[in-house]
């Protein structure tokens, strides 16, 4: 099967530091699979995700999305249409309601869905946010609720890659289970490529492939 995302000799070093966070990574991610990336805090998991999501560029090597080098792609368009990111810290616009956050994301992705608001409400309902909560400013939502809104936003524009940074870090086990079911369904039923960074063994357990990041390398466990 052809890989959706290919990392070819990818290295990264933060500006003003003299050490590569990771060196010459070679990984392939395919559609329809769940990947888990585990590793100690500070090893560079979030950094890797920011490269994959086109928020930053590798300092060495290249990342290909459908054979296209990300460094040559319109990465705004890539982020708006092809990839959905569930951030470790949610990154919702706090003075907007949950619905508004999702509709805005759909608008940015130039989604052709007619009634975006209705679609957003249904999507939020799927991740366990009722209408009353959906119409509240996200600042006034709990951590878990914000996390769910973040998930809904990440999938609202039907991206082919979904990236999640500690998606269940703030959730109780019951909610964690619900979220994991959603992610599993996205990969196995909707053929998305799901990449999850996690410390949680439960989360890792649903993955088709588990990588461990250590010493600047990714190793399959």
């Amino acid at each position, binding site marked *: 099967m052809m890989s959706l995302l290919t990392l070819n000799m990818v290295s990264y070093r933060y500006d003003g530091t003299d050490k590569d966070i990771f060196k010459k990574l070679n990984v392939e991610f395919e559609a329809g699979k769940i990947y888990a990336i585990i590793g100690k805090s500070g090893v560079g998991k979030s950094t890797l995700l*920011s490269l994959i*999501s086109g*928020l*930053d560029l590798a300092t060495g090597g290249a990342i290909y999305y459908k054979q296209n080098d990300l460094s040559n792609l319109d990465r*705004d*368009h*890539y*982020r*708006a*249409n092809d990839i959905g*990111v569930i*951030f*470790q*810290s949610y*990154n*919702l*616009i706090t*003075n*907007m309601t949950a619905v*508004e956050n999702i509709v*805005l*994301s759909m*608008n*940015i*992705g130039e989604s052709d869905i007619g009634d975006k608001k209705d679609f957003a409400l249904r999507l939020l309902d799927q991740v366990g946010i009722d209408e009353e909560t959906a119409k509240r400013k996200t600042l006034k939502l709990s951590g878990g609720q914000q996390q769910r809104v973040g998930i809904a*936003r990440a999938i609202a524009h039907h991206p082919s890659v979904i990236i999640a940074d500690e998606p269940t870090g703030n959730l109780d086990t019951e909610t964690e289970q619900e979220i994991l079911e959603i992610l599993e369904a996205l990969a196995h039923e909707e053929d998305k490529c799901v990449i999850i960074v996690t410390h949680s063994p439960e989360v890792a357990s649903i993955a088709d492939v588990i990588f461990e990041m250590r010493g600047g390398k990714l190793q399959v466990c």
Partner: protein
Amino acid sequence: MYIFMNALKNLGRNKGRNILLALILLAIIGTTVVTLTITNTADSLIDVHQEQFGSRVIIQPDIEAFFEERQATGEMAPIPQLTLAETLALAESEYIQDYRLIVEKFAFGEGMTTLGEEEMNEMLGSAGGTIIMGADGEMNEVSDFVMPNLRLIGGMWQHAFENGERVLYAGEFPQAEGEVLISLELAELNDLAIGDSLTLQGNLFASEGITTQGYQLTIAGIYLDFTPEGFSGMGFIPPTTNRRNEVLASIDTVVNTLGDNLEDALGMELDVVYYLHNPNYLADFEAEARAMGVNEWLLFSSNAADFYAMVAPIEGLRQVAQTFLLVVLVLGSVILMLLSSIFIRERKYEIGVLRAMGMKRKKVVMGLWTEMLLLTAICLVVGLGIGSLVAQPISDTLLEAQVEATASATDVDDSGHMFIIGGGVHFADEQTPEYEPIDQLDLRLNGGTMLEIVGISLVLMTVAAVSSTVHMTKYEPIKILMERD
């Protein structure tokens, strides 16, 4: 479209910030409305007055200084005057809107009796020859000197006919050279009718002394004269002063029969008043005249001081308004700039999220500009409303203060000259009436002012928008989002 809608909603989402921005914008726009309306209305009022005022310029010799110098040097020289050529050339000046010119000559009507002549002769007796001081300063006894008994007047004497002081009684106004208009009294006294000839004689200075020159004129019309009789301490009006003895003709008639050498033409006088397009042109006009070689003893004066006194309160008000506007604009822009750049820092995270979600930088900037534009538009409408409501009372209060301030400060130099030679005596009744300082300004918010206000608002909006988006290029979404972690 969604960018517009989002911007609109963002106005409400960032209520606190936007209310503060709006208050500042409102203060600036409101001030702009008030001050610009005042400035522009004052400007056009001053313009209108400038045109109506038509500032009169009078050119007179500095007689006192001239006599002083003559006494000091013992030199004899005729009193300086403008030449006719200079007068006509100056009338063509671009600074001149209009002018009034009269050339007149004392003359003797041969075989005629004029009003007051008999009384005059009786008073003088048969004095025989007359002693006349020539241009060379020599006293000459001349036997062929003629005692003038009337005045031949050329130029713009029509004014008296326009204001009803004189009425054409018979015939028509002189058209061709050599045609004249005489008063009914003079015609009746001498049994003259239209078409009859008159022979006038004038005295001329010449190298060989005084000579007389006669010339024949034809009566084209007769006028009725209602001008005031005039006053004389002698119990009668001397013939050369009696206005019913005025023989009216064209300038050409007067000049061509005598030549334009006024210095040589005894008893010839040129009286001119110029009207400037704008009271401020006096210095330029005088410079032009000096360059032309106009006699240095001639002083140029205008009644511009009256004009300045009249518009002083308005001008003061205009300056106050303008200064205030400038201060508010500069201060306001600085405050706006500071606030916008502070506020955008507070919204950095929001921008990071938008960029992370794939919104192009251009669209983020567009959204922020749209927000500023909407806010400005709202403030503009409200500011125009409030501004135009309070403008008049504010203007009235300020103007009142200006009227008081200028009333004590202005002291129009109206001393003028002791001797009036030339200097528009013929047009004295045409003089602009006494002007009171303007103490009322009815504000008008016209299209031009409106456009200026909109323009200033747009500039303010741009100032705010630029200062909030200029640093946007530095906002890499990944950095913003990581800063927050």
